[in-house]
C-alpha cells in the first residue's frame, strides 16, 4: 500500500459519509456547467432580450460559486473535526504533519476531481434538456446543443481552483493542534457550551422584534427595515439555536413530571445532547434554507406579476396619435396588414379624446364619449354604460383607483366649453393600461361630448385632442411580432429622450408580456436550480451530522434494547430525535420566510398592486413536502441501521 493508495482508500471506503457531501458538490458543478452552456451559447449573444439571460446566468454562477465555496469549507472543517481522533492516531504512529497535510489535500482533491468530472458529465448529459426548457421559456426558434471548450474550461477552472482553495485552507484546522488533544477529540468539547440566560432571552426577543417589524411594516420604512432586519434576525437565530433552545429545553427538564415520563427521559436527554452538538449546524441550515425559500418566493412573486398582467392590460394594441400626426394612416394600415398576415382576428375601436380644464380641481381632464366606451366594452366583453346628459363617470387609471374612486361624486364645470357635469362613480373595470391616457379620465354622454368645442386653454383645436386606435385581439399573447417597427421608433424616442416630440405612441402589451414572461420565468427557473443546490447542501449537513453520530446511537439503542425497550418505543424515540433535527431549522426558516414575504407583499403592493399570497403559500407548501419526503427517507435508513445493531 503506497501513501496515495492509503488516501484513496480513506475516501472510497468512507464513501457513505462522503455521499451527501459529494452529491451536493456534484449537483452544484452540474448546475454551474449547464448555466455556462447557456452563457456561452453561440445563438444567444447577438439577440437583444438574451442579454438579460446571460446576465442572469453570470449572477447565478457567482452565487453558486460563492455558496459552494462556503459549503465545502464548512463541510470539510466538520469532516476534519469528526476525524480528529483518527488524525491524532496517525500522528502518533509517526505520520509527519507534512504528510497529514498531503493526505488531506489528496483526499480533498480526489473528491474534487470526481465531483467535477461527474458533475460536468451529468451537466452535459442534461444540457440538451436544459436548453430545451430555456428555449421554451425564451420562445426562441431553436437553441441546439453545441460543442465548445468554453463551458468546460470555465467549469473546470472554477471548481478545480475552488477545491484547491478548500484543500489548502481546510488543513489549517488541524495545524496548531497538539496530538494529545486530537486524540481526546479536542474539538468536541467546545460544542457543548452551556447557555447564558441573557443570550437565550435576547435571541427570542430579537426574533420576535424582527417578526413584528416585518409584519407591521409599511412602504415608508420597508427599505430601512430590509437593511436592519436581516442582521438582527440572523443574530437572533444564532442565539436562538445556541442558547434559547437549550434554555427552553432545560426548563422542560426541570419539570420532572414532564421529564421522567417513560421513554421521554431518554428522548429528552438525548435531544439535549443533539441540540447542543448541532446548534451551529442548525443555524447554518436555517440561514441557507431561508435564503433558498426567499429567492424562490421572490421569483415566484414576479410570476404572479405576469399572471395579473392581463387584468391590468385588457387591450391588445394601442396606438395613440396627435391630430397632426402625418404617419397615422400609414401606421394603422401597417398594423392591420400585420394582424391579417398573422391570421389574427381583431376588433378596431377608434376614438377621440378631448381635453378640458376641470373647475373642481383646476386640472386637465381627458374626455371620452359614451358610445366609444361602449364600443370598447362590447369588444372586450365588459359591462356597458348608460349616461344621461349632464352626467359623467370616471374611468379608472389603475386597479387601485377603482376602489378609491368608487364613491366619488363631483360637481364640476369643464371651463373652456363652460359645460357643467355631475360625475358619479367609476367604471368597474380597467379599460386601458394604467397611465396610458393620464390619470383624470371621464366619460360623458354623446350629446354633452358634442358640446365640447373650445380647445384647452393655450392650445389649438388640433393639439387639444388625441386620436386613439384600440385593437382588441382575442389571441393577445400572439401579438408580440405586431408593430415591431413602430415599437422600435417609440423605444428609440424614449431612449433618446425625444419622446415629447413624437406625434404618436404605441403600446403592445402582448410584446411586453412575452418579454416580461420570458425573463421572469427564466429567472424563476434559474433560481429554482440554485435553491435546489442550497437545499441539497442543507440536507447534506443534516445527513452528515446524523451519520457521524450513528455509531454512538447504535451502541446506545443496543443497551436500551437489552434493558427492555420495545420496537414501538424505539421508533418513538427515533422520531423525537429526528424530528427536531429536520424540522426545527426548517420551521424557523419557514417562519423567517413567511414574515419576509409579508414585507415583500408591501413592496409588491406598492409597485404593481399585486397579491403574492397565493404563490407564496404554494412555495412554502412545496418546500414542506420536499422536507417531509427527505425526513421519511432518512428515518427509514436510520431505523434500519439502528435496528441492525
Amino acid at each position, binding site marked *: 500500500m503506497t501513501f496515495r493508495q492509503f488516501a484513496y482508500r480513506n475516501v472510497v471506503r468512507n464513501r457513505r459519509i462522503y455521499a451527501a457531501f459529494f452529491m451536493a458538490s456534484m449537483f452544484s458543478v452540474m448546475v454551474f456547467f449547464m448555466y455556462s452552456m447557456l452563457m456561452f451559447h453561440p445563438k444567444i449573444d447577438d439577440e437583444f432580450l438574451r442579454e438579460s439571460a446571460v446576465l442572469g446566468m453570470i449572477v447565478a454562477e457567482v452565487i453558486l460559486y460563492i455558496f459552494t465555496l462556503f459549503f465545502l469549507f464548512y463541510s470539510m472543517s466538520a469532516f476534519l473535526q469528526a476525524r480528529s481522533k483518527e488524525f491524532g492516531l496517525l500522528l502518533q504512529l*509517526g505520520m509527519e504533519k507534512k504528510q497529514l497535510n498531503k493526505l488531506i489535500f489528496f483526499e480533498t482533491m480526489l473528491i474534487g476531481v470526481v465531483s467535477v468530472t461527474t458533475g460536468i458529465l451529468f451537466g452535459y448529459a442534461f444540457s440538451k434538456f436544459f436548453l430545451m426548457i430555456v428555449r421554451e421559456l425564451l420562445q426562441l426558434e431553436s437553441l441546439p446543443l453545441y460543442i465548445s471548450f468554453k463551458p468546460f474550461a470555465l467549469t473546470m477552472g472554477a471548481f478545480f481552483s475552488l477545491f484547491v482553495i478548500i484543500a489548502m485552507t481546510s488543513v489549517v484546522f488541524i495545524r496548531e493542534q497538539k496530538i494529545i488533544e486530537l486524540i481526546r477529540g479536542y474539538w468536541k468539547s467546545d460544542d457543548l457550551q452551556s447557555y447564558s440566560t441573557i443570550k437565550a432571552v435576547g435571541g427570542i426577543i430579537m426574533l420576535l422584534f424582527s417578526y413584528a417589524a416585518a409584519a407591521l411594516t409599511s412602504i415608508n420604512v420597508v427599505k430601512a427595515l430590509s437593511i436592519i432586519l436581516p442582521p438582527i434576525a440572523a443574530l437572533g437565530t444564532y442565539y436562538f439555536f445556541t442558547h434559547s433552545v437549550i434554555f427552553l429545553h432545560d426548563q422542560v427538564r426541570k419539570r420532572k413530571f414532564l421529564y421522567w415520563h417513560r421513554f421521554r427521559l431518554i428522548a429528552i436527554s438525548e435531544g439535549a445532547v443533539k441540540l447542543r452538538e448541532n446548534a451551529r449546524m442548525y443555524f447554518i441550515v436555517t440561514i441557507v434554507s431561508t435564503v433558498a425559500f426567499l429567492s424562490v418566493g421572490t421569483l415566484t412573486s414576479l410570476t404572479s406579476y405576469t399572471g395579473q398582467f392581463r387584468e391590468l392590460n385588457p387591450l391588445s394594441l394601442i396606438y395613440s396619435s396627435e391630430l397632426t400626426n402625418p404617419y397615422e394612416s400609414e401606421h394603422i394600415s401597417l398594423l392591420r396588414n400585420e394582424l391579417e398576415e398573422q391570421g389574427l382576428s381583431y376588433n378596431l375601436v377608434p376614438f377621440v379624446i378631448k381635453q378640458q380644464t376641470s373647475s373642481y380641481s383646476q386640472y386637465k381632464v381627458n374626455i371620452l364619449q359614451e358610445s366609444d366606451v361602449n364600443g370598447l366594452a362590447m369588444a372586450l366583453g365588459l359591462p356597458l354604460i348608460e349616461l344621461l346628459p349632464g352626467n359623467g363617470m370616471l374611468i379608472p387609471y389603475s386597479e387601485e383607483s377603482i376602489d378609491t374612486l368608487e364613491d366619488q361624486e363631483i360637481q364640476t364645470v369643464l371651463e373652456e366649453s363652460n359645460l357643467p357635469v355631475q360625475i358619479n362613480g367609476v367604471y368597474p373595470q380597467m379599460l386601458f393600461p394604467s397611465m396610458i391616457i393620464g390619470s383624470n379620465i371621464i366619460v360623458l354622454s354623446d350629446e354633452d361630448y358634442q358640446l365640447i368645442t373650445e380647445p384647452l386653454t393655450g392650445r389649438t383645436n388640433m393639439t387639444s385632442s388625441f386620436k386613439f386606435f384600440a385593437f382588441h385581439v382575442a389571441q393577445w399573447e400572439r401579438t408580440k411580432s405586431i408593430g415591431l417597427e413602430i415599437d422600435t421608433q417609440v423605444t428609440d424616442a424614449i431612449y433618446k429622450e425625444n419622446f415629447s416630440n413624437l406625434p404618436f405612441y404605441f403600446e403592445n402589451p402582448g410584446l411586453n408580456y412575452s418579454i416580461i414572461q420570458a425573463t421572469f420565468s427564466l429567472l424563476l427557473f434559474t433560481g429554482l436550480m440554485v435553491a435546489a443546490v442550497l437545499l441539497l447542501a442543507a440536507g447534506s449537513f443534516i445527513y452528515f451530522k446524523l451519520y457521524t453520530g450513528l455509531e454512538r446511537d447504535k451502541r446506545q439503542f443496543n443497551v436500551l434494547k437489552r434493558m427492555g425497550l420495545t420496537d414501538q418505543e424505539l421508533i418513538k424515540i427515533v422520531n423525537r430525535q429526528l424530528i427536531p433535527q429536520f424540522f426545527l431549522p426548517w420551521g424557523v426558516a419557514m417562519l423567517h420566510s413567511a414574515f419576509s414575504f409579508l414585507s415583500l407583499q408591501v413592496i409588491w403592493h406598492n409597485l404593481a398592486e399585486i397579491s403574492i399570497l397565493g404563490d407564496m403559500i404554494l412555495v412554502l407548501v412545496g418546500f414542506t413536502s420536499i422536507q417531509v419526503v427527505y425526513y421519511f427517507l432518512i428515518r427509514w435508513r436510520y431505523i434500519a441501521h439502528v435496528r441492525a445493531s
Partner: protein
Amino acid sequence: MTHRAINQLSFEVKKGEFVAVMGPSGSGKTTLLNLISTIDSATSGTIKIDGLSPDEMSKTELALFRRRQLGFVFQDFNLLQMLTVEENLVLPLTLDGHRIAEMKRRVMDLAKKLGLEQILEKRPNEISGGQAQRTAIGRALIHQPAIILADEPTGNLDSKASRDVLELLVKVNQEQKTTILMVTHDPIAASYCDRVVFIKDGEFFNEIYSDDRRQTFFQRILNVLSLLGGNVNDLSTIRLP
C-alpha cells in the same frame, strides 16, 4: 534507557526487557506513557530512547522518530476502520515510503507469526477483539522499533484473548529481543513481565523482578498493590486460572 518524569520519577528499561508499569488510577501511568510516546512534553527532565533525546527534536524529527523507533499498542486497538488488517499492518511502512515488495515480505512473515493469515483481507469491524489486538501488535512490530509502548493492551479483552495477547508479547520479547514497556492495572498482565515498576501520585513507589515463576510473581505483585493502598477497587481481584 533512562526516564525522568516530572515528580522525580526516574527509571531505566534495558534493551530486550519486558517491563510493566502499575499504579492506581490517576497515578500518572498514561501521562508517563504519553511522555515516552513523545506526544506529550514534560516541563522539565529528559527521556532517552536508544541514546536519542526526543526533547531536543523538531516536530518532523519526532514524527520520523516515532515511526521508526516506537511501536504502539492501545487498549482499544485503534485500528483504522477503513483499512483491512493487512493494510493496517503495513501502515507504518507506508508512512515511511517503503517499497511494496518489502511491505509484502514483512506482512507475510508477521501474519504467520501472529496467526493473522486467514483474516488479512478483513476489516477491523469483522474480526474479534483478540484478533484486533494481535493486528495492532503486528502494526507495532512491523517496522522493528526500538521499543513497544503498550497501554492496557488487555483492558478490552476477555481472559482467553488476554492470555493469547500476553503470550504473544512474551514470545516477541524473547524471540526478537524487542523491548516492551506496558502500562496496566491488571496484575495478571503484569505477571507476564520481567519487572514491574509501581508508581503512585506520579512518583516512584517500588519495583519487583520476576523469579521465573509466574504464580509467585503474581502473588508478590498483589502484595505490593495492597501496600500501595489507595482505592483497592481500582485493581483487578481475579486470581490466576
